[in-house]
Every structure is written in C-alpha cells, then in structure tokens.
C-alpha cells in the first residue's frame, strides 16, 4: 500500500505513511494490531454471548423442572426425590461450557497479544529515552502525539481488556451454577455490554489510527 503512493499528492500525512521506518514504523504497526485485536475480540464476544445465552436457557429450564420436582417431593405422600435427575441435559450443558471456555481461551490469547503490544510500545519509549534523553524527541513521529502518549493509550486499552477478561472468566465459572434468573440475566448483560470497555476505548483506538495515518485526516 505504501509503495504505490507515488501518484498521490504528498501531504505531511501520507508522506510519513509512505516511508515510515524505525520507531514510527513500529508504532504504526502496533496501532494496526490494536485495531485487529479489538475486532477479533468483538467477534469472540458475539460468539461467546450466543453460547452464554444457551447455557442460561438450559440452566433455567432445568432449574424450573427441578423446582417442580422439589415441590412435589415436599409433599409427604410422594417419594419423588428419586425423580431428581441431575444428568438430564448435563452433557449438553458441559458441551456449551466447553465452548464458552474455548471462546474465553481465545480472548485470553488476544489479551496476551495486547500485552505484547504494550511491551513493544514500552520498548519504543525506552529507546527514545535512550536516544533523546528523558524529554524525548523534539518533533512528533506523526502529527502531534509524543511517544509517551502512544504508550499511555496502549496502557489504557490493555487495562480495559484485562479487566474485561477477568470479568468474563468469572462469568464462565459462575454461569452454569447460577439458578436465579436475575443473576443469570445480569451475567448475560455484563457479557453483552462489556462494562469494562467504555466507549472511550473505541475513541482511543480511532485516535490512534488517525494519528498514525491509518485513517485519513
């Protein structure tokens, strides 16, 4: 893409795009990686939401029939405690839980990659300090951000996703053991709305893409 920019009018934006090397190259690639990882996360989130929904449906139908059986067994005349069959639907439930585990594992991989991006960003920053001293380079690598800002935004993004991953892991642990429908709903709600990924995350990504020239100004 950069190679064919010869016929495009050279502006400060795309001139830098066309031949970025060194730290700028690294930062620009990182920004692209952030974008791809976040897209991947979104896809996994949707996938996981469907599975989590299935788990909740299974749990709730089961607990409802359990409830009926418990009611029955509470009658003194019936010896219906033997009717309670925990294995009914258990393999399917197990299946769905494995699927969800799988999704979360993949999300874990995404977060690990994000951590790597963060490390690389940190290294760029360290290199700059080594080259230019503690106040960094005089001229920004792209439009206006100094290198520190890239590191800070990476850190904020990483924190959001780390926290969200923890929440999702907790949901995975609890979801299949939850019988109250309200709590199930809250779990699903958490999964869907991703409370630890605020709207600013998206804005930050866009800012990153804008600054590095992935998005035209």
């Amino acid at each position, binding site marked *: 893409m950069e190679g064919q920019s010869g016929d495009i009018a050279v502006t400060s934006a795309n001139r830098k795009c066309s031949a970025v090397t060194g730290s700028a190259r690294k930062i620009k690639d990182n920004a692209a990686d952030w974008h791809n990882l976040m897209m991947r996360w979104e896809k996994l989130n949707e996938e996981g939401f469907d599975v989590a929904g299935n788990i909740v449906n299974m749990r709730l139908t089961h607990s409802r029939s359990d409830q009926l059986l418990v009611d029955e067994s509470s009658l003194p005349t019936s010896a219906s405690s033997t009717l309670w069959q925990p294995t009914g639907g258990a393999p399917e439930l197990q299946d769905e839980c494995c699927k969800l585990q799988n999704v979360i594992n993949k999300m874990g991989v995404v977060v690990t990659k994000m951590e790597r991006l963060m490390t690389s960003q940190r290294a760029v920053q360290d290199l700059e300090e080594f080259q230019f001293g503690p106040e960094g380079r005089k001229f920004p690598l792209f439009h206006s951000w100094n290198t520190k800002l890239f590191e800070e935004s990476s850190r904020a993004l990483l924190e959001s996703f780390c926290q969200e991953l*923890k*929440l999702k892991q907790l949901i995975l642990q609890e979801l299949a053991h939850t019988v109250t429908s*309200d*709590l199930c709903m*809250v779990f699903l709600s958490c999964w869907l709305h991703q409370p630890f990924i605020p709207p600013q995350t998206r804005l930050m990504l866009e800012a990153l893409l804008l600054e590095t020239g992935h998005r035209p100004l």
Partner: protein
Amino acid sequence: MSKPALLSLHQALRKSFQGLESNQKVWSDVLAECSPLMVSLGNLAEQWRALSNVQLSNTPLRDFPDLEERLRFKLVQATDTVLCKLNGKMSSLQSVRDSISNQVSAVFQLYEENTDSLDLLTVTERSVTAPSLSDMLEWLQDAERHYREQYPFCSCSHWVGFSFYSGSVFPQVMFRFLRRKTLLQTLRADDLSLLESAPKRWKSFESPSAEDRITDTLCKVSFFIKS
C-alpha cells in the same frame, strides 16, 4: 348545481385519496421498523429489572466494585440509543399524520367554500365508478381521525424523560400529554416499570381493524382514483 365546483372537488378528493394511499404505506413501513426497536427496549427493561433485583455485593461479582455503575452506564447508553431511534421513527409518523391531516382539511375547506352551489342531490349522488361526495368525505374524515387517534402512542416518546431526552420533538402534543409527562418526571423510580410496560402498551395501540377500514376505503375509491 355547479359542475365546476363538483369537478374541482372530485379532483381534490382524488388527490387526497392518492395521498392517503401512499401515506398508509409509509405509516405501516415505519411501524414495522419500530417493532424490533420495541423488542430491544423490552430486553433492556428486563436487564434493568434484573440488575435492580440483584444485590451484586452478595454475588461473585463483588470482586468488581465498580461493576454495577459501569453496567448501568452501558445500559443507559444502550437504552438511549434505542429511544433515540424510536424518536426518529416518531417524527416520521408525525409527518405522515400531518400530511394526511393537511390534505383532508384542504378538501373540506374546498367543500365548505362550495356548499352553496352543491345541493343535496349532487352531494349524495353516486355512479358505478364514483362513490358519492358525502361518502368519500366521510371516509376521509374517518381515516384522518384514525391517524389522529393513533397519535397518543407518540406519547411513548415521553418515556424518553427516562434518559436525557425530552419529548420536544412533539410540541403539538405536549399540551395533551403534559399531565402524563409531569407525572413521569416526578416519578423517576417508576421509570423502570414504565419501560417494562412499554412494549405491551405499544402493542395495545395497534388497531388492525381500523387499518383494514382504510384499506377498504382505498379499494372503494380505486376506480374513482383512476378515472
């Protein structure tokens, strides 16, 4: 009896029915677009209800102290988005209603200007292809009333008091629904139940029989429109 008056009135009626036909289509299209939004609203209400029923500090989620606040924020955001879209649909419905009202009142104005020259026979006379003037005027009025009566469901927009929007899109109905709106604003804790009942109330505003009557009317005048 005045032929020109009759002719111009026929012309106006024809135009009005044509307008009614196209507006009916727009109306039902917009309503159809609203249904998925109402479903989303119902889902969100369910999520709100669940969240308010659960004491998060008694659940495993207590490990995340600011979770509830964050989730609420996300829910407000999602609810807002849906309500905003509904508001947009409401203004489309309103413009349909206004356009029907305007056309009908134009026809009636024309009729009233010419009442002197239109005797009873002219007004009630009908032919094979054209219904009588009085019938057609009545149908138009019925249709106009139907869309006007459908309007109260636009008061739904006043739940918007729930989030950050007021019903300012509908200044004309503000007066009529002022009481309801004030009630909403004072009973903030009741917002959730309002939100929950919203899809049901929405459904209750549907009146397929009235819509069918309008379709019937349009069938009855189909020859007249084309003539």
